[in-house]
């Protein structure tokens, strides 16, 4: 991939298996066990066995090392193992790494996974207290003494500027939450199954960090999700129709920070996702008009609006209008997060969203978009990130 030219990764690899544990607030077992269960579930879904696997990819933030997952999952020798940094920004990049390994022959079957007890164990939302004086620690450290300690607070500082710039109220985030929760309500796997909300519920929910309300924020989850990636050729012999990786991209912006990119440009966009968007469109030869449904990373609602703008689904400052009146719901302008998103299904650092993209192409989503052929999936926002365009084979 490149900043300036289309890359040649598209059409070489496919996601052929998806598998997850249940999503809960207390899994009652170790993160390693969750990872192994998810890997097994994904292999079962693909019709493959641990013996077929020669590659593993996860997040730097994951506590279950590739070798230990292999050891506990019955996987033998590995010719490829890799981890991607920057929290949820890693999600789609794990598939990109796997696809690159498959496309180059470095590995044949790669499993990407992410598993954690984020709710019952260490909670991101509880706030930072201290950091080591590494370059990364120092970067986060500027905002801690004045009291920006949580992801919600970092996102809110961007969101406040966005609202100010376009003269909007925090109510514009409501339709994102409502769409997610409507989709989750129909998804038995979702934490918020059968629990839709209204715009009024959103507007009445308590402040977490103004301008973010409770219903703008995802809940921490316990659970694991895995994805099996192999070559398109091999995929055609497997159980399900392949979800072809038409394009995969990572992106970091100029003067990028991990979650505190407050010191550059005008804070109304997501420049790192702009890098991802340009590369996805360029390499896939597709554009926003070709997308049947999208899985847009939604740990917090405001960045869903900004993503719509970065990917060109609407103009700058127009996402609120785009999302209003059910624009992101099934049957709307662009059905988004049909599994319920991280706000409604589970916060699995974006990995569960990739699985939903695969289901849409298989035609097996609980909120199926008719004849979905092209799906856009994005990873963590506000961080160095990644994205995928998945398409049906042929």
């Amino acid at each position, binding site marked *: 991939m490149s900043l300036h030219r289309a890359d040649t990764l598209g059409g070489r690899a496919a996601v052929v298996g998806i598998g997850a544990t249940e999503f809960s607030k207390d899994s009652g077992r170790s993160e390693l066990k969750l990872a192994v269960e998810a890997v097994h579930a994904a292999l079962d879904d693909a019709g493959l066995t641990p013996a077929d696997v020669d590659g593993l990819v996860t997040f730097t933030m994951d506590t279950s090392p590739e070798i230990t997952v292999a050891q506990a999952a019955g996987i033998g020798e590995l010719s490829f193992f890799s981890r991607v940094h920057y929290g949820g920004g890693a999600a789609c990049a794990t598939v990109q790494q796997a696809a690159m390994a498959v496309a180059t022959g470095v590995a044949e079957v790669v499993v990407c996974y992410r598993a954690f007890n984020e709710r019952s164990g260490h909670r991101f939302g509880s706030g930072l207290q201290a950091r080591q004086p590494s370059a990364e620690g120092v970067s986060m450290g500027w905002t*801690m*003494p004045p*009291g920006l300690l949580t992801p919600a607070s970092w996102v809110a*500082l961007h969101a406040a500027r966005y609202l100010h710039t376009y003269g909007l109220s925090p109510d514009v985030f409501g339709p994102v939450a409502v769409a997610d929760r409507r989709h989750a309500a129909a998804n038995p796997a979702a934490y918020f199954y059968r629990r839709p909300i209204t715009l009024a519920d959103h507007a009445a929910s308590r402040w977490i960090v103004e301008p973010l309300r409770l219903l703008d924020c995802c809940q921490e989850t316990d659970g694991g999700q895995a994805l099996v990636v192999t070559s398109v050729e091999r995929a055609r012999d497997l159980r399900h129709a392949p979800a072809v990786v038409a394009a995969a991209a990572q992106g970091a912006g100029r003067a990028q920070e991990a979650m505190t990119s407050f010191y550059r440009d005008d804070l109304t966009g997501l420049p790192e996702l702009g890098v991802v968007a340009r590369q996805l469109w360029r390499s896939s030869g597709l554009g926003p008009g070709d997308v049947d449904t999208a899985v847009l990373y939604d740990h917090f609602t405001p960045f869903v609006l900004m993503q719509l703008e970065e990917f060109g689904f609407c103009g700058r400052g127009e996402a609120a209008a785009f999302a209003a009146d059910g624009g992101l719901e099934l049957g709307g302008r662009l059905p988004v997060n049909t599994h319920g998103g991280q706000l409604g299904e589970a916060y699995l650092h974006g990995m569960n969203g990739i699985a939903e993209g695969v289901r849409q192409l298989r035609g097996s989503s609980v909120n199926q978009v008719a004849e979905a052929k092209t799906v856009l999936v994005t990873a963590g926002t506000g961080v160095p990130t990644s994205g995928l365009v998945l398409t049906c084979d042929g």
Partner: protein
Amino acid sequence: MNPEAYQGLPSTVAGVGLDLVNAPMIRHWCEAMGDANPAYTGAGPAGAEPIAPPAMLQAWTMGQSGRSAHFDALMRELDAAGYASVVATDCEQQYARPLRIGERVLFDSDIESVSAKKRTALGTGYFITTRMDIRAYDEAAGEKPGDATPVGSHRFRILKFQPAERSGRPQGVDAGPLRPRPVVNRDNAGYWEGVAAGELRFQRCDDCGTARFPWLPGCNACGSARWHPEAASGAGEVYSKVVVHHPLPPAFGAEPYAVALVELAEGVRIVANVVGTTADAVAIGMPVRLGFRRYDDELMLPVFHLAGPDRLPPLRVPVTRTLIVSGAIASRDYQEVHHDAELARAKGAPDIFMNILTSNGLVGRYVTDWTGPDVRVESIAIRLGVPAYPGDELQFSGEVTERGENGRLVLAIRGTGRLGVHVSGTVKVRVNATDEAAGQATDKATGRATDTATGQATDKATGQATDKATGKGDPA
């Protein structure tokens, strides 16, 4: 016991100031308060006669001259009933005219009201309000008591109380959890050295001239490793702002707090708290001015205050033992709780604490630091909140809430320490009190009256830290 029966009885009858208004006591007061106003020392415009600091009014009446048997009886009755502790809560002074050297004050006061029994954070007790009228005559110039003319009035409220059962550790300034520490390494140590020195330093590339923040060893614009630090002027604007509601770590207080992204005049941005106002009052686009606030023994942070013509620049006053004791003595207040830590503890306080006359004096100083010496202070009315103990630091902020005719301004003032608001109140001034002040009045209208000289002279005279930005940020 029926304390309310004392309402309306005299508390002072024909009180006489023990000393004439005199230069040494004024000097002691000014030294204790860190007040460098030349109007009080005769260093002002040629020919201008020195006046006593208005907030010193009560000090001339101290010493119990004329104290009535009624007042003593009321105190004894409350002491006997277990309401033995006393704390001053309010002080409202009106100034009819300035006091000058050589004058003697005469005063009478009444017990204006005694409240019903009240429960307060300190304990259960009675609020007693006295109102004093003060006159004075120029004894040094040969005038007689009969020549006395009104100089002002003084309403004073105390709480006579039985301390509440204290639970857990004393509420000293070091009590409680601390904010997260800054993360410091070799790449950004210079920034934190700057903060310790009262400067907000950003980096500037030696090769391409780009200003940058946060601190990094190289330039993102050109890649150069050569740079130098620069101190921010202190002017800035709120670029973005959030209010944190949840989680609310104890170190940040009990109320939701504002965190702002401030864009400095030099073009770099920094995340910091906006202080001296409510979280809701902070808005994107507001002009702000740099200050510094000490949060605990280790942690000092740059903070921002709302700026603009209606905002007084911030003032930081470290609460030292010296300030508390010298302020008490300069105001002739010999209550043990203001100078004797052991006895203060015996009376239920964690340490000595600032007396209300000093708080009043600091409010007066803060206002006249801003207006300049050519001002008539018409009244100061303050209410005390949390006590100020040694080791704390008071951060004064203020704003113009009303602009009347003839240069009359109403100012709302707050002095906040680590435990919360120590003093809040209203000060009324007239800024064109003399012809000469007409020019100054223009400055006041733009809020640029505080000049470098005032701030620095204060620093030198007393060694008290004033806000560096006060002087630096203002090109006026």
